[in-house]
């Protein structure tokens, strides 16, 4: 157990860099790089939407994912869906009834761990837009290689040889799992270990959020 604990503490995530308000016309925007993976997210809202899309008890959340080149694909829709569900749990939509919130995600560089980068960037953009949220959320990706080792934040070449890739999203209050997105085959034990490793790593991401936000506003707690 002791060795496992030290294992949990002894890690580092790739350097993260973020700029808020990168886009002047959006209500909130953030560009985030995690290592060599870069994504850009803009948030608009609450704004008026068509009657058909209005909901009387909460805001309608719309997530649009746009890849860098080429036509939109099924994979893009799938990512959109995952991100929308993650954001929906976090945003206090009941405070903005009959309105719409639009989250637009633009891929800039995909060098591994792209989904995690998009989710983290979306959280920063939502914070920047000043929307009320239940909690913030942080995503960490990992890969299980052929030998069964867990690798946090895998690079492109590690992803190609990996047996399974996983992305986990945690909330900031109880560090409980919000979203799990996995591909490939793995054992139950490996899954449990990967969740714990990523949960521990998510602390670093939350600390980074705090660092970014404290640059332009007062941070409580």
């Amino acid at each position, binding site marked *: 157990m002791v060795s496992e604990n030290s294992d949990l503490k002894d890690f580092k995530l790739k350097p993260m860099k973020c700029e808020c308000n990168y886009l002047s016309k959006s209500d909130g925007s953030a560009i985030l790089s995690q290592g060599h993976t870069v994504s850009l997210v803009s948030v608009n809202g609450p704004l008026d939407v068509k009657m058909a899309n209005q909901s009387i008890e909460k805001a309608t959340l719309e997530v649009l994912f746009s890849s860098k080149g080429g036509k939109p694909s099924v994979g893009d829709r799938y990512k959109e869906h995952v991100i929308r569900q993650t954001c929906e749990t976090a945003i206090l939509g009941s405070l903005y009834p009959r309105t719409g919130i639009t989250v637009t995600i*633009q891929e800039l560089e995909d060098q591994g761990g792209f989904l995690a980068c998009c989710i983290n960037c979306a959280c920063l953009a939502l914070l920047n837009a000043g929307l009320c949220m239940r909690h913030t959320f942080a995503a960490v990706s990992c890969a299980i290689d052929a030998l069964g080792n867990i690798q946090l934040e895998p690079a492109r070449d590690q992803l190609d040889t990996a047996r399974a890739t996983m992305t986990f999203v945690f909330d900031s209050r109880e560090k409980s799992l919000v979203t799990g997105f996995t591909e490939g085959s793995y054992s139950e034990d490996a899954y449990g270990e990967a969740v714990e490793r990523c949960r521990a790593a998510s602390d670093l991401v939350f600390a980074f959020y705090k660092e970014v936000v404290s640059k332009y*506003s007062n941070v409580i707690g």
Partner: protein
Amino acid sequence: MRDVFLSNCEKTFLNRIVSEGHRLDGRIYNESRPLNISFGSEYGSCIVSLGETKVLAQVSCEVTQPKQIRPNEGILYINAEISPMAAPQFEVNRQTDLSVYLNRLLEKCYKDSKCIDLESLCIVVEEKVWSLRVDIKVLNHDGNLIECASIATLTSLAHFKRPDVTRSGDSVVIHTMAEKDPIPTVLFHYPICSTFAIFNSDILLSDPNFLEESVCTSSTEEGVSTGGGLLVVGMNQYKELCLLDLTGAAIYSSNIVHKAITGAAAKCKEIVDMVKKAIVSDDTLRQKRVKINFSDVITQDHLLSLSKKDLNIKLKHYNTDEKMVDDDEDAMTIDSDPEPSKYDVVSSNPQTAETLSRKGASQWIEISSDSEED
């Protein structure tokens, strides 16, 4: 979301200051906003920003069958998209007039001007040619989208390199970047679109921002046309005209078009030189194995933009720099400052709209208590 409406005050104010020789952001008529080009890790991907207007361009290629009428030519396809990221009034997956117009202009400028050597994209006649696809994504729309998008298209096309191909008999082998050096695209000339906003049918503003663009194409409150419009001039580095497009009111004097063309000629040459320089410096960096990535565009420039005002108005004559003080010194000595009265409006913050536009003492008359008694 519905379109952003312009208030009448904005319209009249902008029309008035333009006719008096000023612009909101303190530029002169033929001054452009700063241009910035940054490249991504792949060949043919770049972000071009013109002031706050930002456009992402990505070129990709694939092998396809050529068109029946042009069996020995490659295919160029340009696709421009304006997502809600550009501005909240754009809707998801819906073509607006602006995006159709942008697509058409880019096609005219790059396909119809034949700036790309399409024959060099041919692999096997009538069977296999390279098809280049340029994807333009508008990230932020703050006016003059056309110029920004055209610079992005040109830069990404000039920056793009396609994989090398060898033919042995009937089979065609496409080499990866690691096996053989990729081949750059051949460009005969470098056309660029530049936009001019026409005010009162005789004033030309180059590189209009969003407000100037919307004011010059709109009519006055009575529905009378102001004689304004947008003129797009496409020109290459040899000062040859490639494209001319006008939206808004009709022009009744040819002088203004001539003026725009001479203005565009100098500007296009300058921009093309800048694009070429950016590509050369990027190439030398890549040869030194420096990793170039979009993460380099992340700076802290916009950190405090939330606490700034959305509309920055710069009044040149109220500059507090020392240089300006020197110029004003002679004027100051001549008309010695009148005694400041308590009704004078004093600026609290230099270079903002709060500063008064009229100099001199207040015209308000102080009514003394004696006169009241009379």
